[in-house]
């Protein structure tokens, strides 16, 4: 297992799959039985097929949606990413009509690779509150920091 190759594949996941919307690359980078250990804002996802569907859904609502990797930490079979996501709301999303506004959020995501160098699981704490508030899906509320 190569730490450098793992980092390269995380960069490819965000550039090719998330930012370019190229779901054909998912099978190369991820196991079919991939699990996203969710939290309340970005819930559990079971299987890489669900990732592909999610990417298609977000891309249709935010055609220019893209991730910027701010930092990466790689060690053994783990790569952790600090990232920001930005997109212009041009299509219906979560029941809301397009607003034309730029939405954004930031967070931390930890990926584990298997022995074949494919992503097998992920934990994420993505602070999508700014996007949900901008969409009017949740009211402004006090948070306790992290």
């Amino acid at each position, binding site marked *: 297992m190569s*730490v450098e190759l793992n980092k390269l594949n995380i960069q490819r996941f965000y550039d090719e799959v998330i930012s370019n919307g190229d779901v054909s690359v998912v099978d190369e980078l991820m196991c079919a039985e991939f699990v996203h*250990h969710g*939290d*309340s*804002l970005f819930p559990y996802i079971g299987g890489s097929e669900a990732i592909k569907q999610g990417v298609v859904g977000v891309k249709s609502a935010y055609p220019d949606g893209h991730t910027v990797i701010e*930092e*990466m*930490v*790689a*060690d*053994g079979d*783990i790569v*952790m990413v*600090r990232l920001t996501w930005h997109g212009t709301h041009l299509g219906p999303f979560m029941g809301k009509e397009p607003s034309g506004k730029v939405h954004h959020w930031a*967070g*931390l*995501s*930890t990926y*584990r690779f298997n022995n074949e160098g494919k992503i097998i699981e992920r*934990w*994420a*704490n*993505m*602070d999508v*509150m700014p996007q949900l508030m901008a969409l009017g899906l949740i*009211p402004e*509320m*006090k*948070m*306790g*920091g*992290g």
Partner: protein
Amino acid sequence: MSLDANKQLIQEFHRAVMVERNLDAVAQFLRDPFVDHSAPSEDGLASYVQWLQTYLTAFPDFTVETEDFIAEDDLVSTHLKITGTQQAEFLGAPATWKPFTISGMQLYRIADGKISERWGWVDVMSLRTQLGIQG
């Protein structure tokens, strides 16, 4: 400092502060200046201590389990599971005595043998839901 030394620093920091609840020890681990990107303020050390105090007061039985401690260059990260019971006021809501379990993640930068920057997110939305805190 070596990667192992960096990981050890963060493990000792977590033990002193989150397990032993020794808030006086915070200044030994945080560099001056300390930038807390998840709670920006002019005095990063003071605001970090205040955040900890808020959690430790509201959840005196709070435990933090760390997993997948990793290090590269000057960065250390871990993802965590936090459990506790709300025994005092939190986010304006009075004590509910409800238990909670949430996930979180922390990223630390080490400089001059101390923690110089932090980014952290914990699942506060789930915490609010588990405790039944509205608005």
